[in-house]
């Protein structure tokens, strides 16, 4: 147990166990996003409720609401709760007026991203799909449209690997593999009809937002890790057409770093050198393209066709 946990002991997790990014997760938090599993071995990640430390010894604050130290992260969601995250534990302290649904969403986006980074994975913002044997990470800022494009590709026969996060693990041979997460994709109302063909609507992410979680049916989910072939950097632009362009050379590394989840935290977490190595490894082994879409037009069919055609 990391020493800075101090008196904040990590309680044995409750009976609920899930599988996420290849980990067995023991959790006190119920989730209708995940199917429970029966595992003989002790969970490799525990999620529990409880008080979290107010600060971290030798911690730095790279963002207003985030403090990091070697191997640990404290994150506050003002008015809702606080998260304490290490590679083995996620502790959640809920504010009395906190929104359970928001905290749940944070857990699967934010906290899991930090956990997987601390476990040596490279995490990109976005969504990942499998087209046949081809693993594709669609990366971009949260409003870029990665989930929409992923949903379109799954609707056309692809398989969902993950949404919100693309988690890349390196195997013993140093090859980058996309790890499947829970088979849930979150989409705004305008994509609800498209998702209906391959997924079940689990309801709103938050009562106040018109964003819904969809659980993909089993035939549309990628069950095993898949080799990463392509990273697509998705951007919205005020142009009227779609375009795709390869990224080459050292620009690939810079682009991968820029697309990495909360890259401003990596130095404080002690992960920057390994993260650069991972970016270089992916740059050497994978194609990277910039895909530009019109910001105010529905271009998902054209985008999907371009991604399918670029082999």
């Amino acid at each position, binding site marked *: 147990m990391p020493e800075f946990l101090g008196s904040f002991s990590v309680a044995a997790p409750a009976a609920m166990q899930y599988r996420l990014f290849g980990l067995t997760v023991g959790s006190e938090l119920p989730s209708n996003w995940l199917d429970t599993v029966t595992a003989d071995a002790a969970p490799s990640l525990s999620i529990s409720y409880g008080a979290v430390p107010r600060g971290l010894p030798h911690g730095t604050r790279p963002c207003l609401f985030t403090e990091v130290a070697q191997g640990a992260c404290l994150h506050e969601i003002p008015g809702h709760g606080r998260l304490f995250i290490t590679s083995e534990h996620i502790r959640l302290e809920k504010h009395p007026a906190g929104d359970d649904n928001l905290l749940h969403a944070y857990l699967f986006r934010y906290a899991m991203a930090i956990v997987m980074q601390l476990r040596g994975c490279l995490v990109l913002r976005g969504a990942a799909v499998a087209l046949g044997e081809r693993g594709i990470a669609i990366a971009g800022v949260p409003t870029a449209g990665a989930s929409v494009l992923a949903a379109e590709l799954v609707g056309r026969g692809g398989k969902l690997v993950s949404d919100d996060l693309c988690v890349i693990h390196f195997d013993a041979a140093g090859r980058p593999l996309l790890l499947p997460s829970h088979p849930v994709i979150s989409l705004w109302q305008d994509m609800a009809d498209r998702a209906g063909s391959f997924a079940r609507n689990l309801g709103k992410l938050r009562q106040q937002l018109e964003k819904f979680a969809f659980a993909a049916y089993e035939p549309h989910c990628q069950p095993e890790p898949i080799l990463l072939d392509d990273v697509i950097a998705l951007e919205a632009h005020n*142009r009227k057409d779609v375009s795709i362009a390869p990224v080459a050379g050292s620009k690939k590394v810079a682009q991968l770093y820029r697309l990495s989840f909360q890259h401003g935290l990596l130095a404080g977490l002690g992960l920057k050198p390994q993260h650069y190595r991972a970016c270089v490894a992916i740059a050497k082994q994978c194609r990277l393209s910039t895909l530009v879409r019109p910001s105010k037009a529905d271009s998902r069919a054209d985008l999907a066709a371009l991604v399918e055609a670029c082999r």
Partner: protein
Amino acid sequence: MRKGIFWIASYPKSGNTWFRAFLANYLRDLDVPVDINELDIRIASRRSTFDSTTGLESVLLTHDEAEALRPACYERFAAEAENDIYLKIHDACYEVAPGCPLVSIRGTRGAIHIVRNPLDVAVSLSHFWNMSIDACIAAMEKSNYALCNWTGKPDDQFRQKLFAWGAHVQSWADTPWFPVLTLRYEDMKADPAASFGAALDFLGLARDEKRIAKALRFSSFEELKRQEEGSGFRENNPRSRGRFFRDGRAGGWKDTLSAEQVRRLVSCHGFVMRRFGYLDEIPSELCKGHES
């Protein structure tokens, strides 16, 4: 002196981009004009700036939750700055909580506030928003008007409360929280060296007349238009009726607005228009109730 944020504030289509183009050219002092797509003076409502500064996932927050946190975000953004920061802003200047303006008192050094005749603003908006002039006039009248006020899919910018045009102008011109230099677009057109020179003084930048002349040449309407025709302008509204840099004249409304449209704008914003001298060129029969 402590560093902080200088806001480049205006109602949309009031000359904010022209000012930013001038400032970018003045600061960089290159031998060629700065690329209009590389102005590097970001808009304050940009979601990605908030996310990287706070560490929060803003797409999971409601409009009100994000708005309440924006002052702290700007304060933090300013605290990290090694030099003064210039941020474009279209939001009105209002309190998100008692004594707490959206733009953060502690993070702010001041604001350049640009105001333009609302008659010209209405015409320009109709091209930019691809809406009828009447619809734009109606938007300018709404006390609760806001940009990016989505209920479904979020934009890459936060909701920006504009209020009605007159209230927007007053919110910046009369803010009690920090120094503001209000510039009239029409004065900037008539005597650019004087207006932009005063702005440099306000920003605490050394005034160099040769550099001002060059920056004005490199940010002239013709130059901005030339660049947009060559490589586009990423800040243009994808739904706009044409180019972002379309006309740029002061007083173009005289060729476009009907008497009824003028009367309606004066009726709603006359008090503020009078203050900035915008009623002077309007026939008195269209200014009923706002005569000097």
